[in-house]
């Protein structure tokens, strides 16, 4: 009970739970519709989903400010690529939340004659840019770790046994250009990537979360159409991963 009280006291945590519930409704609604379930039930689930979406928009009313503060903090990072990716990502998120707030005002009837479709597209565009920058940041972190690992391996191989022709095992793998060797190198890089991600749970979680999230704006903007079931599954997965990072703060990728 204490753990729930501490968890639900954080507004972001509660919002993630409702996000998970919303995307569960999306997934459930699609699955039930496909399997020919009672239309009344499907309609109730869709109503619940719409209600959660509007409620979450209301609850997100102050998030632009949070994102701007986060962007202000990110400007002071020492690494220039990280600084760029994280700052611009937060700025895009701030713009996404601003559009989202305007959409809420339109749906709630506070602002009349609002072009909902235009503002919705706008908000998804900013959301997509933010996710692309997050993925770029993840790719950059992975490349640094792979480079560090390769340098570490080179140092440990400097004392390795030398073959009869005077080459080391490492230089052997770099020498030839055959197809077999290319596939070997790709496999080696893949194993290295898997090892790096296994040793870095925060990076892995952040990468998975961003990959799951990116399908949502890609679908809404018509760039990569899937179906509501897939969107629901991706949204649910990314919400669960997000809840994990809130429950276990050491799983959150820093900065």
């Amino acid at each position, binding site marked *: 009970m204490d753990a729930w009280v501490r968890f639900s006291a954080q*507004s972001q945590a509660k919002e993630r739970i409702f996000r998970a519930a919303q995307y569960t409704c999306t997934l459930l609604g699609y699955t039930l519709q496909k399997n020919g379930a009672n239309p009344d039930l499907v309609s109730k689930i869709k109503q*619940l989903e719409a209600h959660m979406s*509007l409620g979450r928009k*209301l609850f997100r009313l102050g998030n632009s400010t949070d994102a701007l503060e986060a962007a202000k903090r990110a400007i002071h990072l020492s690494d220039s690529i990280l600084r760029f990716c994280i700052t611009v990502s937060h700025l895009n998120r701030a713009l996404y939340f601003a559009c989202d707030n305007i959409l809420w005002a339109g749906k*709630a009837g506070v602002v009349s004659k609002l072009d909902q479709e235009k503002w919705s597209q706008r908000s998804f565009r900013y959301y997509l840019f933010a996710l692309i920058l997050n993925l770029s940041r993840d790719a950059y972190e992975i490349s640094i770790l792979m480079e560090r690992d390769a340098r570490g391996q080179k140092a440990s191989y400097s004392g390795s046994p030398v073959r009869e022709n005077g080459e080391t095992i490492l230089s052997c793998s770099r020498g030839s250009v055959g197809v077999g060797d290319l596939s070997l190198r790709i496999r080696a890089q893949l194993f290295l990537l898997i090892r790096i991600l296994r040793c870095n749970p925060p990076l892995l979680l952040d990468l998975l979360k961003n990959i799951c999230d990116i399908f949502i704006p890609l679908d809404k903007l018509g760039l990569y159409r899937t179906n509501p079931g897939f969107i629901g599954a991706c949204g649910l997965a990314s919400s669960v991963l997000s809840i994990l990072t809130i429950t276990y703060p050491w799983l959150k990728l820093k900065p």
Partner: protein
Amino acid sequence: MEAFLKLSSQSRGRDRMLRTIQYACTLLKYLLQNNSTQKELLKKLQNLESNMSTGRKLFRLGNMLDSIGGVQKALQLPNPEVRLLLVTSCLSRTLYFICDNLLWARSIGVINSINKEKWSLLATRFYFISLIMGLSRDIYELYQAMKQDVRGQQIQKKIGQHISEGPDVACIGVFRLEYFLILLYYSVKKNPPLLLDSMKNVFDLFIPMDRLDIYKTNSGVVGLCGLASSLFGILTILKPSLRLSP
């Protein structure tokens, strides 16, 4: 900015901000209701208020568990009177949240079989009981604080001043009232969290009393009281030292 960020990072903080806006809309609607030129604005205020109310009901869905946690904590309090009052208050609040969740389910069409008016009145009754228990606890704490302060030097000085002015039959009644008020003033001054909690509960009480026809006022008074109690709630979140514990 920092205050806003601190407030918005907590669920309770966000809820209080939305409650402030909701009751501000109620108050504004009452003030503008006779102004025929502001029909469009009135409609927007109505939309904003109902949207805030429905949204807050959605986000209260987990609060029943928080109240149960409150009951568990209250059961461990050493003082038996405070324990009884707080446990009853938390239990009433839990029942209020259960009714509130059912009303939310009814409002979005998930459950259609419940009588909205009946459950709304039931929820208001439980809310009213929890506020009465909260206020009773405040009065009890205040009484204990006054009992402790009655031996205090400042109070003795004031009493001494009155005795030296000469006894008079008509003055004795006034003296007793003044003595009580001075004691109340000093006890409350030393305990700002208790004062804030009492005022918050008093303001909150007008809302269910109006709804249950115990003390009918108007939507303006309800809006003003709701706004005031929400602002006190925000103050206790921004300055945790002002929050009455437990």
